[in-house]
């Protein structure tokens, strides 16, 4: 995706072509290629299983994989898992929705008006330097340890990338397109709606996706530090009881949900932007 400078025609050099494209070959060869990424995880898993079975490592320090899976199944069967997942999802969705709406509004107003930008952006940049974890004690003292604390911190985490990408998106309309608009005598409203906004959309989407990633990350952090339910709490709880199987099960769930959302947003982004650029080309 970073290969933008491929200008020369003709065959690519051998070692890079081998690096990027899996070539045709016999079926077993293809299968080997397909299995390659699985070797490392399988080897680790095997070592882990054997190590646990042979008693090289105490189960207290590193519970065997089967044990972790059992715990995960137990959690799912008893319904506890869903309660925690639900609590976490609710927090992240509320925080993300609030944060991205404020971020969009802030980014749009800064993007459309140089004046607003000049007044607001320096303060915004200064506040951005302070990470979520440093805001935590401040907000904790102000609103207490309840749900608003989580919403505010997650919203703050999502707000920053959304606002900055929105601002950048509004600033990147190509000069020649804007000139075309001027030639056609577009009003300012038309300029914004038909030129600036369409070119801003991909960057807006990047901001939203980044915002969600940040929101999910801070959810885990906030729940680790201050909560009594949710996936992060499950991790802390398992740690306190020294039940590492529980900790690992919760980490797996956190990773799986984060991964699923990332894939989903990636897919949506590609679909959306693909359709977008196609329609732009069709329109032009």
């Amino acid at each position, binding site marked *: *995706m970073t*290969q933008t*400078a*491929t*200008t020369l025609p003709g065959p*690519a050099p051998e*070692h*890079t072509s081998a*690096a990027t494209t899996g070539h045709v070959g016999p079926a077993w060869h293809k299968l080997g290629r397909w299995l*390659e*990424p699985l*070797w*490392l*995880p399988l080897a680790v898993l095997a070592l882990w299983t054997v190590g646990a079975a042979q008693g090289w490592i105490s189960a207290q*320090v590193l519970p065997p994989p089967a044990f972790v899976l059992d715990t995960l199944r137990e959690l799912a069967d008893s319904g506890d898992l869903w309660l925690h997942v639900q609590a976490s999802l609710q927090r992240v969705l509320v925080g993300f929705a609030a944060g991205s709406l404020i971020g969009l509004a802030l980014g749009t107003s800064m993007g459309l008006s140089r*004046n607003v930008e*000049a*007044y*607001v*952006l*320096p*303060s915004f*940049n200064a506040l951005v*330097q*302070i990470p979520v*974890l*440093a805001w*935590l*004690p*401040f907000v904790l*003292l*102000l609103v207490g340890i309840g749900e608003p604390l989580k919403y505010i911190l997650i919203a703050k985490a999502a707000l*920053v*990338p959304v606002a*900055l*990408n929105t*601002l*950048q998106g509004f600033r990147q309309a190509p000069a020649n397109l804007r000139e075309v608009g001027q030639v056609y005598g577009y009003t300012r409203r038309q300029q914004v709606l038909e030129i600036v906004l369409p070119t801003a959309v991909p960057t807006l989407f*990047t*901001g939203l*996706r*980044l915002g969600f990633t940040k929101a999910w*990350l801070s959810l*885990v*952090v906030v729940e*680790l*530090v201050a909560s009594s339910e949710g996936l*992060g709490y499950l*991790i802390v709880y*398992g*740690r306190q009881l*020294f039940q*590492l199987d529980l*900790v690992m099960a919760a*980490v797996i769930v*956190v*990773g799986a949900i*984060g*991964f699923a959302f990332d894939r989903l947003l*990636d897919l949506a982004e590609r679909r959306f932007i693909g359709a977008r650029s196609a329609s732009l080309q069709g329109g032009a």
Partner: protein
Amino acid sequence: MARSVDAAELAAVAPLTAQGSRRWRGLVLPAAAVALWWFTSTLDLVNSALLVSPVQVLDTAWEMISTGRLWRALSASLARELTGFFIGTASGLVLGALLGLWPRFNRMVGPSFNTFKQISLFAWIPLISVWFGLGDVAKVVFLSLAALVPVVVNTAGGIRGTPANLLEVARVYGYTRWQTVTQVVLPSAIPSIFTGVYLALIYSWLATIGAEYLLVSGRGVGNLLIEGSEHFQMDLVIFGMVAIGVVGWLMNASARVLERHIFKGRTI
């Protein structure tokens, strides 16, 4: 894909505009906020122990600085941060170079690494605390992990992003593999590698604060915040936040100056 996320984040960190003569306008909002804060705290409109006056925050700040507490906390935090940063960056450079230069290694390890980095870093802390205790070792392990990820991603990405026409020129001139790597691939990858190292510095600073929160032992800037929060000392909390923000800003600014200095006259 992964690289675009980190790169976008870096773009978000960089300033978008710098207007010389109108810079005063940026000060209006903070000045108004401080004035409002000062007014409400002196007029006793809100009766709360949490609404400390700006003067009190300044007093606390002066006390922390003059007694050397700030310095002790900062040096403890920074020593850990830099240790983790160096270990993480060094191993990240090796891993990233292997992933970028060695296709087979990339096919075998790349997917596992990408899955690994999806898991929120902080979720590892409870496990790290069991395996390495609550002391400095655990913190440094955690910080190294935080620094490792962006270095690997950007090193591998930069190496793979070497323009194909440059590689072709090298092939035409009959460069050996070693020559190609040292004279074509590495020079073209260096800006991206720098980005990775820069991100690693910032990530490991964020992780330092996180580690002080979640692996509570020792003294650092994060511990100042926790102490302030536990004793309802809003002045201490505000001062700690500002200190953390200033250190982060200094890191950002110095990396940017360095970047401009190194890549002066280069078209990236």
